[in-house]
């Protein structure tokens, strides 16, 4: 390994007020390597890369880029040094095309000759073997395409060091594979990639070396091939952790929810839900798998009365709830929590504190004109303690909380309403291991209480371990509903791509039901 060192950070310290975000961190990244930064939320990963990309400056310690000691004072300076940061939330202009986004802020003669400019971008694409429709507008792109635009944008600006902040958080397994393919290509051509993540299997799959951070310190740097998931978890959490979800046995109760031939129309008259039928029983977790945008959101919203139904029936405890208002549906005991991609949960008001957010669902039950905060306050305290929500106080506006904690506020409120049907979409999106397992435990607890849970998830491993049955969606259609013990991850992948369940081989469906 005598490759040139691209990034060398020594004894980096950074404090924000009293919080010591980084303490004596050492990191070295060489040409041609994919280096993973692994750590739980708040371990200091983002702070560290923000110092490479010029957003923060370290209090002490030294940074050397391509062997030269530097003080990176602004994002622009970082770009000039060949450092490209790909943020988790894409910084792209929706109404402009891919090419136009890439050309933003470029120096050059005032008149823009699109052909010539596109030609230049194409050369970069050829060099790194990337493919993209440059004239396509960002707003028409899928998430993974947008990510490629971001990557191409920094490459076009001559970046040799790419930093990706949780790039897979918004991708499906297939898209993740494609991204990893692109990254491997980049390092072959002499780039270095730093990838921030807390997904262990991805660290194992993509990285050459991994640096584990814990509570602001760099624990160690390991060659990925010499380590394993168990060791990494222990290093990351600081103690041995049991990583398997123990599925508590399902006691299938009464039929709770029965959806018959449900269809719904989206923009431009496209069917976003197409003849969906499924049953959900008390005391079971029904998982929903599918590529992002296959109709998951619409299922949640039609059941909770937020999305117009074209035709079909939704029977809840035998009563058709199509056409009822959301409030009437909530009254019948249906709770819905949806964590969208930007993670500021649907149904919360960012500028309100926890108490008032609890009150949002509470006040209708109170008599009179004025609101009584006493119950909401108790509820907020209860939810905070139960879910271990990290907040300066229940009176702090929730927008100041970290993404994971905001999610817990939403889920906590929904569970505290003691629903008989709990719909939850992407509840662990972006959460670290500890917090995710907390949520899984909560869902299982609900199931044991006899609540029917509709769990819309991304991680197929988790779906298989957590859910009793799994329904797979593709383009608004159900391609299969199966017992989760009777299908493999590959089988799910095929269903997600549109295969029908009867066409699957025995290899991926060990026991047909």
């Amino acid at each position, binding site marked *: 390994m005598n490759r040139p060192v691209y990034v060398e950070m020594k004894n980096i310290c950074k404090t924000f007020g009293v919080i010591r975000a980084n303490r004596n961190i050492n990191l070295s990244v060489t040409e041609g390597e994919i280096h993973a930064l692994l750590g739980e939320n708040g371990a200091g990963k983002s702070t560290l890369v923000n110092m490479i990309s010029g957003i923060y400056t370290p209090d002490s310690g030294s940074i050397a880029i391509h062997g030269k000691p530097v003080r990176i004072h602004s*994002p*622009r300076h970082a*770009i000039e040094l060949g450092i490209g940061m790909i*943020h988790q939330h*894409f*910084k*792209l*202009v*929706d*109404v*402009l095309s891919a090419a*136009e*986004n890439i*050309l*933003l*802020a*470029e120096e*050059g*003669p*005032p*008149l*823009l000759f699109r052909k010539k400019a596109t030609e230049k971008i194409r050369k970069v694409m050829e060099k790194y073997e990337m493919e993209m429709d440059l004239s396509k*507008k960002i*707003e028409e792109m899928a998430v993974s395409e947008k990510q490629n635009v971001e990557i191409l944008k920094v490459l076009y600006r001559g970046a040799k060091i790419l930093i990706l902040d949780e790039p897979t958080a918004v991708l499906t397994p297939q898209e993740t594979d494609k991204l990893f393919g692109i990254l491997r290509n980049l390092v072959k051509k002499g780039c270095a990639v730093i990838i921030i993540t807390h997904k262990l299997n991805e660290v194992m799959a993509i990285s050459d070396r991994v640096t584990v951070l814990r509570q602001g310190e760099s624990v160690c740097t390991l060659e990925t091939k010499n380590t394993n998931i168990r060791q990494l978890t222990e290093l990351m959490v600081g103690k041995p952790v049991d990583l398997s979800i123990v599925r508590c046995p399902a006691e299938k109760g009464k039929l709770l929810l029965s959806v018959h031939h449900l269809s719904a129309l989206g923009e431009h008259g496209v069917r976003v839900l197409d003849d969906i039928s499924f049953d959900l029983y008390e005391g079971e977790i029904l998982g929903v798998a599918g590529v992002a945008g296959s109709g998951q959101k619409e299922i949640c919203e039609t059941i909770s009365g937020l999305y117009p139904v074209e035709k079909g029936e939704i029977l809840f405890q035998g009563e058709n709830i199509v056409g009822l208002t959301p409030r009437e549906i909530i009254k019948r005991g249906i709770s819905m929590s949806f964590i969208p991609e930007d993670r500021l949960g649907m149904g919360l008001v960012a500028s309100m504190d926890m108490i008032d957010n609890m009150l949002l669902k509470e006040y209708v039950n109170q008599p009179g004109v004025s609101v009584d905060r006493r119950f909401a306050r108790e509820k907020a305290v209860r939810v905070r303690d139960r879910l271990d929500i990290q907040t300066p106080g229940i009176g702090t506006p929730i*927008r100041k909380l970290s993404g994971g904690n905001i999610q817990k506020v939403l889920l906590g409120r929904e569970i505290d309403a003691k629903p008989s049907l709990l719909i939850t979409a992407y509840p662990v999106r972006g959460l670290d291991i500890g917090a995710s397992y907390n949520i899984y435990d909560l869902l299982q607890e609900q199931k044991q209480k006899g609540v029917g849970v509709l769990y819309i998830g991304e991680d197929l491993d988790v779906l298989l371990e957590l859910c009793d049955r799994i329904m797979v969606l593709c383009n608004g259609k159900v391609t299969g509903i199966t017992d989760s013990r009777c299908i493999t991850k590959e089988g799910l992948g095929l269903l997600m791509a549109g295969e029908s369940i009867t066409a699957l081989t025995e290899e991926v469906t060990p026991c047909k039901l």
Partner: protein
Amino acid sequence: MTNTLDFFVLFLKSAVVAGTPLLFAIIGAIYNEKAGNLNLGIEGMMLLGAVAGFQAALSTQNPLASLLSACVFGALGALIYAFLTVTLRTNQVVTGLALTIFGSGMARFWGQNVMGQVLSESFSRYFRPLSFPFLAKIPILGPILSVFLEQDLFVYFGYAIAILSGIYLYNTRWGLNLRAVGGNTAAADASGINITLYKYVHILMGGALCGLGGAYLSVVFVPSWQENITAGRGWIAVALVIFTSWNPYKALWGALLFGGLDIVGFRIQSLNIPVNQYFLRMLPYLATLMVIIIGSIRKSSKHNPPKDLGNAYFREER
């Protein structure tokens, strides 16, 4: 037959003239909104430009001095707005309204001593319509061309501004960057575009154009000073920006259409058709209302406003 043709040619000619102040104002507003700033002070800046242009015309008798002064005072009004909304991050709607009130008050105050005065013949000749007698000899095409070509130099300047603005927005790097500033300020910032500079420059440019629009009214169209000379044209321009989908080329047609509505009353009266004159005078405002309704029905993203229109930008906020 020739009479009807003459009538229409004459009508369209005056529609172009009546649309010219709107054209400048629309393009001024487009620059503001592409920079992400909803400026409701268009009317105020037009009035500032109108009074400054008129005063300069009276005292210097020089057309260039008159236009320059209109530009400068329109831009000064915009500077107040830019300082408040960009640097101090005040609410854009409230600030714009305040600018309109300030502009109309200022115009009334400064115009008091010249109320009703008419510009001299020696000045007005600079803005006399050009004439191309040979056009009359070409059948069909001749009259159509004469509508647009037999106009004064100020109108030509308007055409030039619209076309140059189109090229600027869609074919230059600066224009691309500007569209990014209004389209997604955070993304533009992350790409290394100087947000504050872009906002200031284009708000001021927009102000100068609005000033010119106002000056066209007081110096060429009327041409004498009267109170509230813009009569709500600044507000119509704000609505027309939506109608033209923030596109300077389409602004040419929008201005012509509304110029026509502006003068249709006079023309119909001259034909002795009995229509209530108050109804006719209401037409441009009624049409503006229609335009807003139609604009809100069209849902294609091509007709959407810049995404960050009206948002104050803080780098640190998420």
